[in-house]
């Protein structure tokens, strides 16, 4: 029994070491493009800071990678989140959306923030600073309402 456990343990370690070689995506472009959300609307620093802290990791071309992002399988999962997140909403490319899509995205952002659907709770576990307090939520919602 003990032997089996040992074998399983070794196998696990081999796998874990092995997957460290899985290539990782890098979602990082230092320059902020003209299509960035902050240039599309008249955005206060306060508002854009909130978006950057709480949303940009998965919804922009600039992810702020934490230390454990260098380890697999965390990086793999993170890459997947970033890919899916950007497909849904990309603050860096916001200016490229059609007016109709911009309106949809703004509506969705508001809905997600109001209902505490975003940021994801799993993300908040590792990024407590990203949590939106009621005060910050009100700031964001007011800002979004002002755009209509």
């Amino acid at each position, binding site marked *: 029994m003990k032997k089996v456990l040992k074998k399983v343990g070794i196998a696990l370690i081999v796998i874990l070491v092995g997957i460290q070689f899985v290539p990782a995506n890098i979602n990082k472009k230092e320059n902020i493009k003209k299509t960035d959300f902050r240039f599309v609307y008249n955005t206060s620093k306060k508002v854009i800071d909130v978006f950057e802290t709480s949303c940009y990791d998965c919804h922009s071309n600039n992810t702020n990678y934490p230390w*454990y992002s260098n380890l697999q*399988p*965390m990086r793999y999962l993170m890459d997947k*989140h970033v890919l899916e997140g950007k497909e849904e909403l990309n603050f860096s490319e916001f200016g490229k959306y059609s*007016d109709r*899509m911009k309106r949809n995205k703004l509506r969705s952002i508001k*809905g997600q923030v109001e209902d505490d*659907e975003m940021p994801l709770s799993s993300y908040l576990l590792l990024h407590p600073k990203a949590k939106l307090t009621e005060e910050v939520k009100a700031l964001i919602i007011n800002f979004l309402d002002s755009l209509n």
Partner: protein
Amino acid sequence: MKKYRLKLVVAFLGGSLLLASCGNDSESNNDIPQDDEGMEHDHNNHDHGGMNENREVSVNAGEAKGDLSLILDDYFSLNKNLVQDDASGAAKASEDLISSLKDLKTSGLSNDQQKETDEIMESAVENAEHINRNAENIKHQREHLVSLSIDIKDLIAIVGTSQKLYEDFCPMADNNNGAIWISDIEAIRNPYMGSKMPECGKIQNTIN
């Protein structure tokens, strides 16, 4: 050393579980309980009927520039499911809607109309995809119905249809922001409020 290894393994696995926890499963394939049109409650004629009657939405009442009937059928079926609070039925209907949207053929559109149609399509498909993926979250489905209904309304305005349709409005929908939907029946069947208030709303425009 052994202990350290074990800790490492636990940390890895714990971390992966944590990150994996936010996937959303969207499988659900209940059959759609089809609503029977016959079950009409008498639709009380709202007193504001006279005020904004027959404002034409369709700008080109003449020749239709494409056949919207499949899209509209799927959209109506989606709404029927939402009226009945059936999120998985709505998800299924939106899947049909996605394919009928993608199948639309148009002709004789001006460049501007073509551009707008493309934008409507992009938006409508995205909204329908969200409805499709949220078979367990009817609130989210209804949020996307708000934009989807605007897409459908604008699409009708460009492409045209010979069907007699109604643009309904409910002031309480979308967290009291108010929202429209398009219907092929005169009776109000509110997809936003569902069984809570199925008759909330009024006809604000007729098409054809």
